[in-house]
C-alpha cells in the first residue's frame, strides 16, 4: 500500500510498529537515528515518516527544524505529551502527533488519514479473485462488478485497512460508520454476512472467538 519509514531508537517500539504495518500490507524501512533516516530518505521513495522525538544525537524536532519541508508527510510518535510539545510538533509541520502509549488501531487509522490526504495514486486491494479499488469505490469479482451498498463498502474499507487484525464489533461499528451511527453490533453481523456472501469470502473474513472479525490476507 504505502512505504513508511519508521524512525525510532527503541527497538521494541520500532518492531511493534513495523510488525503491525506489515500486517496491513505496508512496506517499511527502519531507522534508529537521524543519520540512518537521512540515508534511507536519499535512497528510497518514502510515502510517510513516523518520527520519534527523543532520538540519540539529533532529536525529531531538531530534524524537522532543519528540514522544514521534507516533501514527505511526518507523524511524530513521542512520550512527550505536554501541550507545548504538541504545539511545537504541529508548528514544525507535522501531519499528526501520536503520544505513547498508543493503540495500534489508532496509529493505523491516523496513518491512513495522512496517507489519504497525501498519496494521489489509486489504492487497490486484491485477494483471490476479488479486486477492490478503494478510491473508485468499485469491486470486481472475477472481472464482474459487484454491487455493494454504501454501508457495506464502508465496512469493507475498514476491514481492508486493518486486515490481519481482529476488530471487535464495537470497533468496526465506530470505524466504519462513526460514533453517531445508531445501530447495535447486530448490524455489523448482518453486513459481514452480506459481504461474505457477495464476495464469496466465507473463509477470508474470519470470526475470531470472543473478539470479532478479521480479514485475512496474504502478507
Amino acid at each position: 500500500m504505502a512505504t513508511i519509514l519508521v524512525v525510532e531508537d527503541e527497538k521494541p517500539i520500532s518492531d511493534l510498529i513495523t510488525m503491525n504495518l506489515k500486517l496491513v500490507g505496508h512496506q517499511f524501512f527502519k531507522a534508529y537515528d537521524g543519520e540512518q533516516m537521512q540515508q534511507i530518505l536519499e535512497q528510497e521513495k518514502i510515502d510517510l515518516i513516523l518520527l520519534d522525538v527523543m532520538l540519540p544525537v539529533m532529536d525529531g524536532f531538531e530534524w524537522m527544524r532543519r528540514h522544514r519541508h521534507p516533501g514527505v508527510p511526518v507523524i511524530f510518535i513521542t512520550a512527550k505529551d505536554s501541550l507545548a510539545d504538541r504545539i511545537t510538533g504541529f508548528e514544525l509541520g507535522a501531519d499528526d502527533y501520536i503520544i505513547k502509549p498508543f493503540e495500534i488501531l489508532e496509529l493505523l487509522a491516523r496513518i491512513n488519514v495522512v496517507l489519504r490526504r497525501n498519496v494521489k495514486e489509486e489504492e487497490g486491494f486484491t485477494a483471490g479473485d476479488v479486486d477492490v479499488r478503494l478510491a473508485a469505490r468499485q469491486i470486481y469479482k472475477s472481472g464482474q462488478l459487484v454491487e455493494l451498498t454504501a454501508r457495506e463498502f464502508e465496512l469493507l474499507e475498514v476491514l481492508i485497512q486493518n486486515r490481519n487484525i481482529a476488530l471487535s464489533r464495537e470497533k468496526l461499528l465506530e470505524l466504519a460508520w462513526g460514533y453517531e451511527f445508531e445501530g447495535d453490533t447486530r448490524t455489523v453481523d448482518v453486513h459481514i454476512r452480506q459481504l461474505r456472501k457477495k464476495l464469496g469470502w466465507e473463509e477470508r473474513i474470519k470470526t475470531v472467538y470472543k473478539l470479532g472479525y478479521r480479514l485475512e490476507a496474504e502478507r
Partner: protein
Amino acid sequence: MRFWQKTLLLMLVLFVVVLDVSVIMIMNKSWRLNMGREQQRAASDQALIANNIYENLNSIKSRGMQINDTILLDVARSYGEYYRERGISLELSSQDTPVYAGPAEPSARYISVTNELPAPYGYLQLTYRRDIEALYAGQDELNRYFVYINCISIPVLAALMYVLIRKLTKPLQSLADSTKNIAEGNYGKRVQLQNRDEFGELARHFNRMADAVEKQVTDLSAMAEEKQRMVDNLAHELRTPLTSLQGFAQYLNAAHIDEEERMTASGYLWSETLRLKNLVFKLLDLSILSHQPVERSRIPVVELFESVRRMEQANLDAAGIELILEADISAVWGDRELLESFLVNCLENSIHASNPGSEIRLAAYEQDAAAVLEVTDYGRGMSAGHLERVFEPFYRVDHARSREHGGAGLGLALCRQIAEAHQAQLSLSSEEQKGTTIKLILQLHNNGLLT
C-alpha cells in the same frame, strides 16, 4: 517621618535650646555684674559726696558759723545743681525731714543709696539717686540683637545641618534601594557601598546574607529542575515499555500471525516486563534508601570483594574482562548489602564501558584517615559534560547501549543515595577513551571504630 528629618529636627531644637540657654545665662550674669558695678559706684559716689558735704560743713563751722537749715540748703543745692547735670539727683534730709530734694527725674529706674553723714552730722541723711535708664536701654538693645542673631543663625544652621545630614545618611538611602531591589527577587544584585563606617559594615553583612540567599535559591531551583527532569524521565521510561506491552499484547491477541511473529511478540512481552520490573525495584530501592537509616557493621573487605566478584563473574566472563582485587585495609564500616550494591552497580557500569580483554580494578585503601572503596576501569570514559549529570536518575551517557544492557538508568543515582546514606563522599573522575574511576570515601568516624 524620615530618619534625616527626625535627626535634623532634633539636632536643631537641641542646638538652639542649648545655645540660647547659654547665651541667656551669660547675658543675665553680665546684667547682674553691671548692676553690681553701678551699685558700687553709687555707694562710693554717695560716700564721696557725703564726705564733701561733711568737709564743707566743717569749714563753715570752723569759720564760726552756725549750721542751720538755710546753710544746709545752700550747700546741698550747690552739690545738687552740680550733680544734676550728670544725671544724679541728691536729697538731704534731717531726721527724716527733707531739707533739700533735687529735681525729680521723669525716669522711674534709678539706683538709690541713702546714708548718714559722718559724725557729728549723723542726723543728716544724704540720698544719692542715679538714673540707670541707659543700662536698661543697653540691655534691651542686647536682647533685640540676640533675637535678631537667632533669626539669622537658625536658618543658616538648619541649612548647613540639612546638607550634612543628607550627606551622612546618603549610604542609608542607597542601602535601602539596593536591599529593596534584592528583596524584590533580584538575588544576583549586591549593595555597592565601599564606606568604612557602620554603613559599610552593614552593606558587607547584607551582601554576605544575599550570597547565602542566592545560593539557597539557586540550589533549590536546581533541585526542583532535577526533580522535574526525573519525573519527565520517569514518565518516558514508563511509557516506552508500557507502549510495547500494550501493543504486543494486542498484537498477540488480535493479529493473524505465524509462529515466528508470535515468538518475537511474546519475547518482547517478556523482556519489557523484566525491564519494568527492574525499573520498579530500583525505584523502590531509591525510595527505601532515602527513608531508612543504615545499620553499620564491620565488613571484612576481602569478603565484600569476593561476594561482588561472585555476583558479577558471569558478566565479567561474558565480556572477557579480568577483575583485579586490591584490599589494603582489612575492613570497612557500613551496611553490607548497600556497599555490595554500590560496588555491583559501579562494576556493571565499568563492564559496559570496557572493551573485551581489558581489566577492572577493585581497591580498598586508607587515605587521609578515611577508608576509600575504588572501582577503576580503562574503558570508554565520558566527557566533562556528562560527569555533572551522570548521578541524576535516568541520565544515560549512551542511550542505545544502556538499553541494550537492560539498564534503567538508575545505577549511579542509587550509588549516590548509598553514599549519602553512609554520609560518605562520592568522587568520579573520567577521561574519554582512557577510563573512569569512582571512589566512595567513607568518613573517618566510620572507620574510627575500627582500631
